[in-house]
Structure formats: C-alpha cells, structure tokens
C-alpha cells in the first residue's frame, strides 16, 4: 500500500455536496459530527473547500441546475478522489425519478465509488459506509461496494 493510501485511510477529508436534496440526508451527515456519533474519531473531517477534499459525499437527486456544478466540482477535486452517493436520492433519485427536473442519477454524471442507501441513512449507516470506503481505499478494490 503506497504512502498516499496510508495517509488517505487514516485521515479523510469529506466535502459535502447537496445536489437538490430534501435536507434530511444533509442533517444526518452533520449529526455524525455531534458528540453522540462523533465521526471525527475515525479521522474523518468535513472540509469547506473542494480543493482540500478526498471524498465527495453527494446527496440529492441531481437537479438539472446542479449537474454542471457537480461535474465542475469533481474536476476540481485533487485526485485520487472518491465519490459516495448518499441516500436513496443520491443512489438513484429515489422518489423523484419521474420528475421533469431530475434528468439522471449521480452515477451517470460522475463515477461513484460507494453508495449509502436509506431515506435518510441513519448515522450508524453513514459511519459504516465511510468505513467500508476506507477499506476500499486500502484494498484498492475497483468494484463498486454497497454501504
């Protein structure tokens, strides 16, 4: 395992991106920072700028207006970069797949490495999913894994 992978698996910077979500997923992510769940003990921190991010945590059903923004942010991310599609909306647009304003799910816009399904996923599922992603980074497993 290279130095990059060792560092990545010990301390992950996560950038949270909402592509048109109902906010539940976003709140559950913030909930993970609070004392009861405390994501930071796993070395996972939320960052405010895409240029510092290793992982992009994408919620929401990829509203048309956000599609160019998602692509732009993914391109700006320093590689290696990993994408987690979060929630039912992130994985497949969920209930909103029949809408005129949600063209395609996130995994058709940018390559996704992990999915955390749920509406919203509970904080335990989030922690589980992110830990699985860390395992993936360590193993360099190229296949998609479910959280």
């Amino acid at each position, binding site marked *: 395992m290279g130095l990059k992978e060792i560092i990545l698996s010990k301390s992950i910077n996560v950038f949270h991106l909402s592509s048109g979500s109902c906010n539940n997923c976003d709140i559950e992510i913030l909930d993970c920072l609070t004392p009861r769940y405390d994501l930071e003990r796993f070395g996972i921190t939320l960052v405010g700028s895409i240029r510092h991010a290793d992982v992009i945590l994408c919620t929401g059903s990829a509203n048309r207006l956000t599609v160019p923004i998602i692509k732009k942010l993914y391109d700006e991310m320093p590689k290696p970069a990993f994408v987690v599609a979060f929630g039912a909306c992130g994985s497949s647009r969920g209930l909103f797949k029949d809408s005129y304003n949600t063209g*395609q799910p996130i995994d058709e816009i940018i390559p996704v490495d992990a999915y955390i399904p749920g509406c919203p996923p509970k904080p335990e599922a989030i922690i589980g999913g992110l830990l699985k992603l860390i395992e993936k980074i360590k193993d360099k497993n190229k296949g998609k894994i479910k959280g």
Partner: protein
Amino acid sequence: MNIDEALKSITDRFGSRILAVSRRSVKRAYMDIYPKDIVDIVRYIFKDMAFRFNIASAVDDFDGLEVIYHFSNDAAGFVISVRALLKDKTDPHIDTITEVTRSAWWIEREIHELFGIEFDGNKDLRPLLLPDDWPSGVYPLRKNFVVPKRDSRKEGAE
C-alpha cells in the same frame, strides 16, 4: 367578522362583478370573478378587509387556465379563494397584484414559468425555479406536458 359577513361585504361592494360564490363551510368559500377585476378585488380583500395573502395557484383545466388567489382571515379562521378563469390558453393574461402586495412577487414568477401565464404590469417575470436552458414555450405544469418515461441507463447521459 365571520365568513358570511365577509362574503356579504365583498358582494355588496362589487355586485355583479362577482360571478359566483360557493360557501363550502364555515371555514371555506370560493368566489369566481372576471380576470379584469382581480386587482380591485384583491386590493379590497387584502388592504381594506386586512386579510392575509396565503398564495396563488394556477390549474390547467378543460375550459381554460384558472388562477386562484387564497386569502385567510386569521382572526376568525376561514379562507376565501378568489378564482379567475383565463379562457385563452394560447395567450393567457391577467393583471399583476404586486402593486397591492409585495408578497405576490415570487408566485407570479413561478406561475409564469410553469404555466405560461403573463402577469401584465409585472416587469420581473424572470424564471424562478427552472434552469436557464429550459426551452421556452414549454410549461411543465400544463396537462399537455408529459414527463417522458425512459430508462436513463439505456439512453446514456442526457
């Protein structure tokens, strides 16, 4: 003031300009009016009778596009909805009520982009919700707009 007193006050003031009144219950009433009278009637209900503007909604019906303005009297707990029918679906127009209340700014923009209704006198009918590259003349909430059912994986990215 209860709902019957309110309805009587409006019908006394506007007479035959009120086409129909349907009092559903002690809490709900619907009034039909001509589109050209909307500003005067809204001004009376919002300013003179001091009702609160809930929202406006548009409906694409068989005989035209209906715009319904909902007002609530919070002191007595009832809602009066004022309905104007725009019969010409190809070029529907109604006067703006933003002169009477600023709370109608956004909803007129939204109804304009989703239904294609022109609010005469409103200089700011920019799109509120739809993307900038949404094709003009396509109004999503009209009945003739059908969201295409497709399997996006087969067709690839749009």
